């Protein structure tokens, strides 16, 4: 098919815009990585853009040795692993029965779950529930408080529903019970969706911020997100009086900020490419069905 000159111009224009947008998504990270490994002097003079000037890794050492970052990193890993496993278990175990047409009270239960997406108790009443269950300052407050994302559960449910009925029926005729049906047939057929939700929950727990500052007051239990946020705040509140502080110290905290962000992003960047093909597939299928 021939395209008009106007059409060609339009398509070129679209390409340029999209590439520019993509660059705005990458360049900040390149900039931060460059900042984090450049010498403090070059950073201070504004010589560092996307390429490091005068390599200097001392702030990385400082970050892991003199700040609670290492412990916070470990905490983040524990929170993420435990939370993702529990959430996936609970989500599958809730979504599967709700996807079966012969479940009693299927509609009311689904509606009751759906309603929590529209209305909730809010921050203070939820905190009071956590408090009365003595979950404050334990990771159970994070894991149980966010056990099931209703949105994730509903897309899992509609994915289970999309598994052809004949497959399940013939298995049941062969004497396959509900648990074996789920384990042997439904779950293996739902791998893209399972991968997608694992990613969503994993990212949610890794980035968890609000719940941690609400429920975890013990600093030794806090995760990387909260610890790095604390470092950023010190920097962010630098006012004119703080400008008189020792030059050396300012350079360190300036770079420390960049190091904190880089350390938090790296694990994400490592897993992201592997999971990307799954989640795009998962979301597309989920959104068409839902």
């Amino acid at each position: 098919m021939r395209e008009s000159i106007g059409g060609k111009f339009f398509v070129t224009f679209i390409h340029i815009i999209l590439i520019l947008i993509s660059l705005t998504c990458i360049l900040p990270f390149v900039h931060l990585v460059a900042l984090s490994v450049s010498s403090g002097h070059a950073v201070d003079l504004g010589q560092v853009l996307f390429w490091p000037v005068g390599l200097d890794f001392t702030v990385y050492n400082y970050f892991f040795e003199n700040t609670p970052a290492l412990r916070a990193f470990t905490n983040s890993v524990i929170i993420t692993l435990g939370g993702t496993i529990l959430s996936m278990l609970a989500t599958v175990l809730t979504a599967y029965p709700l996807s079966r047409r012969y479940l009693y009270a299927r509609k009311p239960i689904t509606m009751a779950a759906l309603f929590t997406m529209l209305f909730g108790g809010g921050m203070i009443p939820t905190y009071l529930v956590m408090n009365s269950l003595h979950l404050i300052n334990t990771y159970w407050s994070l894991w149980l408080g966010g056990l099931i994302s209703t949105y994730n559960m509903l897309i899992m449910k509609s994915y289970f529903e999309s598994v052809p009925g004949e497959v399940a029926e013939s298995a049941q005729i062969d004497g396959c019970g509900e648990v074996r049906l789920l384990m042997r047939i439904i779950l293996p057929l739902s791998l893209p969706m399972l991968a997608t939700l694992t990613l969503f929950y994993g990212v949610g727990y890794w980035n968890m911020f609000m719940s941690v500052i609400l429920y975890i007051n013990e600093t030794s239990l806090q995760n990387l997100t909260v610890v790095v946020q604390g470092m950023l705040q010190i920097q962010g509140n630098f006012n004119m009086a703080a400008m008189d502080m020792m030059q050396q110290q300012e350079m360190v905290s300036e770079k420390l900020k960049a190091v904190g962000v880089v350390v938090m992003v790296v694990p994400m960047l490592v897993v992201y490419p592997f999971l990307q093909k799954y989640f795009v597939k998962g979301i597309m299928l989920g959104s068409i069905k839902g």
Partner: protein
Amino acid sequence: MKITPAAVGTDQAPAAKEAFYQTKRFRQNIPLFAMLIPGVLYYLIFRYAPMGGLVIAFKDYNFHDGIWSSPWVGWKYFEILFQSNVTLQIIWNTLNLSVLNLVFGFPAPIIIAIALNEVRKTWLKRWIQTVIYLPHFLSWVIVAGIVLTLFSIEGGTVNKLLGQWGGEPVPFLYRADSWIAIFIGSGMWKEMGFSAIIYLAALSSIDPSLYESAGMDGAGKLRQIWHITLPGIRPTIILLLILGVGRLMEVGFDQVYNLQNPTVLEKAEVISTYVYKVGLQQAQFSLTTAMGLFESFVGLVLVLSANALARKFDQGLF
């Protein structure tokens, strides 16, 4: 479970079959309900019990008496809420930021999806997608770190560059208007790529022959987008708009809390951050619960009205 020929045609068969299926259904339901136990407990304890806790908005809550024994005060805290300039300003800020978020943030992913749909080279399309989905997976702490690195007045990259070109440093983060622009912009930057996925899914279901015949009839790219693409994804747009309107009373806690600073607090304090700071840290439980209840209630009314409106056009969500 095969139906024997003998059973077919006799009078008792339908009743017997019915009873058989009922028993079978009951047996199947036992393991299903066992599976549901954790989920049901979760919803009851962590979702529905807090809704019951909302009664403290109508009480003078104190730790000593607990939720049930604290004295009733009726609408006292709602009256305070709507008479105090501080709280009114905060409600206004919440609305202001979320409306701006919707106005600028909502069309962005639609535009991105339509633009991506025009990219024919698969490798380029995939590369762009990989890159623009990424910010969605970063926490607001990281995004706030990037914003500080770029825009802060002491050592921000933008101000350093301005300085090198002989300009005066601009306090981007300390002026209300530029702070709001950065707030909205960072939200768009983080979510527009990822939100485009759902529109891309909708776009992929549009019949390509429509474009071919429109092209033969002489319709240019823009006209094709207007007359084929947009109507094709209209149900998706309306669905997401309903959800967006339902969230108009809430501004993401993480986003505001991480981006705000004391200088712009007058415009940047929203309901969720205020509830955290005043409610939890200063133990004003009843007042802030009233505020939270107001927020959730308006949100519920908004989503139900948006849905009712959409239903008039046969696009209702529920």
